[in-house]
């Protein structure tokens, strides 16, 4: 079945098995190894990608539902200006994510920061509850995410001036 969709802002026509998981296709057909498949049940968040700018676990998305949608993975997101700001701030807060969760978590944080005007601690906790991690201090991560949002907003205001 030929499935047309956008991947990291580029048009793709893929002859894929409609029942394949998006995570497997991204890894095997496109070599996007940032998409970690581990639990395959939507519990760990390691495979998080943006589907039409909304974070979803790619392991729970079948290929038949990606027609005409835009999929953004960590590979694309990590080239954006906003990503740079987020990483800088998180690093300053002492948040160093491991390779298991880094990609999924950064995709979730990126989408949260870009889709919010203001963030409370609860918002951050809720948004990251789908990305399993027991080792990073949540408090510092929360402050980091909120500071990143402010920094991005400031950057945009300065650009406009």
């Amino acid at each position: 079945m030929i499935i047309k969709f956008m991947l990291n802002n580029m048009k793709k026509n893929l002859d894929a098995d409609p029942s394949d998981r998006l995570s497997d296709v991204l890894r095997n057909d496109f070599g996007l190894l940032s998409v970690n498949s581990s639990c395959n049940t939507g519990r760990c968040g390691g495979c998080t990608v943006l589907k039409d700018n909304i974070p979803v676990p790619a392991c729970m998305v079948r290929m038949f539902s990606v027609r005409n949608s835009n999929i953004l993975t960590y590979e694309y997101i990590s080239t954006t200006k906003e990503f740079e700001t987020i990483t800088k701030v998180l690093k300053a807060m002492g948040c160093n994510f491991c390779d298991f969760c880094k990609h999924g978590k950064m995709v979730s944080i990126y989408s949260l920061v870009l889709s919010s005007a203001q963030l409370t601690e609860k918002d951050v906790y809720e948004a990251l509850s789908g990305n399993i991690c027991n080792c990073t201090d949540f408090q510092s991560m929360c402050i980091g995410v909120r500071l990143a949002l402010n920094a991005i907003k400031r950057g945009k205001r300065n650009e406009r001036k």
Partner: protein
Amino acid sequence: MNGSDRTTKLIYYTPDNVNGLLKTMNTCKSYRLCFDDLNSVDILDKRENATTPTKAIYPGYIQELSALKRSEKFFEIGPELRVNELLKKGATVLPPILIRALTECGPPNVRNILTIGGLICAPKIRNSVFAALSILNAKAEVVSFTTANLKFLIPVQQLYRDGYLDIKPGEMILKIRIPYEEYDVDYFNEIQDKGTSITFVGTASTFKSSISICKFAIGNWGEEIIRETEIESGLAEQKLPIPEKIIEGWTEKFVQLFTEKYTFFSPYVQKALTNMFTEFLSRL
């Protein structure tokens, strides 16, 4: 877009509108309805003696099926509406018990995929949301292609018979209709047991210091929703506040259910559910 799956020989259909969907259903007597969250349900035509379908239908591209509409007496939810979208659009109108059940059904990235239709139809995940819909008197509007597109309403708990979804080939849920009703008490609690979750949901209304409506349901992963209308109607005339002794009496009746009817619950679950029931009563 139609295509075939090389391994299982399933032919996929992804119709863009309800008419297309009904036409597709008409061409295949038995089919698999697929949802975004990897769940699917097989609608098999008994006359064909089919055991596995050869066709799969994904209704996720049909716009009409993902709307949230409000009318004077009820609101209608399209079965393909994503849970997170529903929570956003319906934050101010949905009954609090449903909001709670929807919020508890997974983390936000998973809720971006789950649909209300999937939560009702997929056997493994219907649980808290289904139980909440049941006590809210939700009804499913079903259209049947085989009877000249006739539409009819079924209470959600009657969608299942003997543990199976009782939707016949050629039928499709178009909307979930929930009547506007305000309740004074909402109760929601959940426990985990052996990897599955069991939910207790309850609502009640009071009038002139006595209970006017009292409803509760137990959602058990993959099983039918448990409703005990006898206890519900018994509680409905109770004066408030309920004396300790009466609460104990009802709790005893509730505990009896586990020895008579619901023997499949482990002692741990039985104890937890009993505590939830007592807590619900003491909140009235």
